[in-house]
């Protein structure tokens, strides 16, 4: 039965292939029939598991749908993306796709804007250290004996809920507006004569970092707060009995206990940071002079302005390789770091 449906799928795909290469005409206008055939095949595969393998098959059925879904939606596009990456393909030009080997790679090597965007990502990632400090401080405060804890928790959580696009208008376009924005007024009152938050490259980068921090500090804060609440009260009390004062008990008791949570929070935050794009696209569009560009926003514009699919995909692929290497190293380091303590 599996083979039957697989044959159906292969037949449909072949028919489609023939259609596109112009061998015969069966009246297809797009690749949808192949998609339907694939869905059919996937369903039959799942069903067949139960019929053929009984109890064991029923267990497989838990994971199989999700696995099929993810494989078909990531692995296939990734392979397809590799093909695109090594070709020159401009969607707006009529020539279609042509294979051009390593030309894209060579072009990338000489593209100062891409390297600039990568450099910016390093800066953006470094900003996480500051975010982490603030988030930890807030988590400590929320964990201490305070009134109206629920109110503060909700208030601190809200920035995370807002969509980055709305935030980029609310904060980036209106509150930081050089003439009427309330923050510009505040800056003027504090003695900055001509506040322009996106004028010079350094200030613009700083502003983007601040806005991104504003949305994501709550995220780290909540993870750290959960970690703090998991520390048994007895430990801090014991350290107090032993004579450790606030500062010392924090560094010697709380902080080491929080190390695993810290590493998880920072790793996840880095992953999210590497995807940073919405705010940049909407507030500065990478300006002034590419100073705020992230890799994602750069590729986005590469497609939007030039419909250059081939080159854009190559950039994205290189970025993926860099990220995978970077994250693997980071996780290995983190694992080695926590092992002795646990």
């Amino acid at each position, binding site marked *: 039965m599996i083979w039957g449906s697989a044959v159906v799928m292969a037949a449909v795909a072949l028919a489609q292939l023939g259609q596109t290469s112009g061998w015969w005409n069966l009246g297809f206008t*797009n*690749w949808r029939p192949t998609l339907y055939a694939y869905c059919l095949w996937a369903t039959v595969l799942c069903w067949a598991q139960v019929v053929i393998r009984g109890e064991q098959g029923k267990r497989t059925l*838990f994971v199989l749908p999700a696995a099929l879904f993810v494989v078909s939606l990531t692995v296939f596009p990734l392979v397809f993306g590799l093909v695109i990456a090594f070709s020159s393909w401009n969607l707006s030009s009529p020539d279609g796709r042509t294979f051009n080997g390593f030309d894209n790679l060579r072009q990338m090597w000489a593209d100062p804007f891409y390297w600039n965007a990568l450099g910016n990502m390093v800066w953006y990632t470094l900003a996480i250290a500051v975010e982490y400090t603030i988030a930890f401080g807030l988590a400590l405060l929320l964990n201490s004996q305070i009134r109206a804890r629920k109110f503060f928790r909700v208030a601190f959580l809200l920035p995370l809920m807002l969509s980055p696009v709305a935030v980029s*208008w*609310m904060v980036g*376009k209106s509150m930081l507006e050089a003439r009427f924005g309330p923050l510009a007024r505040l800056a003027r009152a504090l003695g900055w004569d001509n506040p322009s938050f996106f004028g010079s490259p350094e200030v613009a980068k700083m502003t983007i970092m601040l806005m991104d921090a504003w949305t994501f500090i709550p995220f780290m804060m909540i993870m750290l707060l959960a970690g703090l609440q998991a520390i048994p009260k007895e430990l801090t009390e014991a350290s107090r009995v032993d004579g450790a004062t606030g500062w010392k008990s924090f560094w010697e008791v709380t902080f080491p206990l929080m190390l695993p949570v810290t590493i998880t929070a920072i790793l996840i935050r880095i992953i999210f940071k590497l995807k940073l794009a919405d705010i940049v696209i909407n507030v500065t569009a990478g300006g002034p002079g590419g100073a705020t560009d992230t890799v994602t926003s750069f590729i*986005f514009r590469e497609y939007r302005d030039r419909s250059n699919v081939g080159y854009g995909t190559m950039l994205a692929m290189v*970025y993926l390789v860099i990220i995978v290497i970077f994250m693997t190293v980071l996780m290995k380091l983190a694992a080695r770091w926590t092992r002795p303590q646990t």
Partner: protein
Amino acid sequence: MTETAIFKDTEADRTFRAKWFANRLAVYGVLILWAIICLFPIYWTITTSFKMAPNVMQGNMVPWVDFDPRWLGWRSLGLSPDTIGAESTVRDEFMKRFLNSTIVSLASSTLAVLLGSLAAYGLSRFSYKFGFMKNDDISFFFLSQLILPPVVLALPFLVLYREMALLDTRIGLILLYTLTVLPIVIWIMRDQFAGIPTELEEAAMVDGLGVWGAFFTIILPIALPGMVAAFILSLVLTWNEYFFAALLTSTHANTLPVMVASQTGSQGISWWSMAALSSAAILPLIVIGVVLERFIIKGMAAGAVK
């Protein structure tokens, strides 16, 4: 002062109390300061949607004191009291986007929670072998999708969807969004299921239930809070998603963030209508945030503490 007083404030006590008081003051000062930082942009956006041009220029802040609230911004969206009954193309447009956003985020969150919790349950209970992949490898395979930056998938998907006529359709977006939130759901749910003792299902199996029967009747009700948390978290993420929506949709399946973004570019400085649009886009989330805060925090905390 007589010598018979039992409780005396020694010098040390007094400095301690002063210190404690200063400490409290500092704590609440910082808390309130940060609360203002968090809430002010929201306050500003919502009030600006009721302002008129001169109010914006003068930077008036407090309604009824500094300026008279008007429905100007909301009127331009067709949502103010006097225009709510009338025909309005802008409102139709807005409602269409709003509906798109709602359908896409609800559908993809449901799908992700369904697929994700099944997979998470399987991974936490049974041992699998797909070729060389064992349980841990499969989990890692799912979770590693988090690292995958959206750009890498974006352009291949653009081409694929064009070939399959899925470009600018809701189904296309739903599939993609499900993919992006699936690892998060699996992460949260794996934690949930790991916390449920295995004896429960063993008892159920002895009573004659199958694997699936035990899952649906025994485990699912227990894990429901976790599922709700995962669902809400994915709802928030998919509602806010902009990157894929901007690339893959153009006219029919546009979501709300895309509309907000396109207005920012085109309209220069008609602040009140932008403010109204932004507040309409964020209001559902604020409501969710305030009402369901407990679940969101729970969901995010799930992975942090092992």
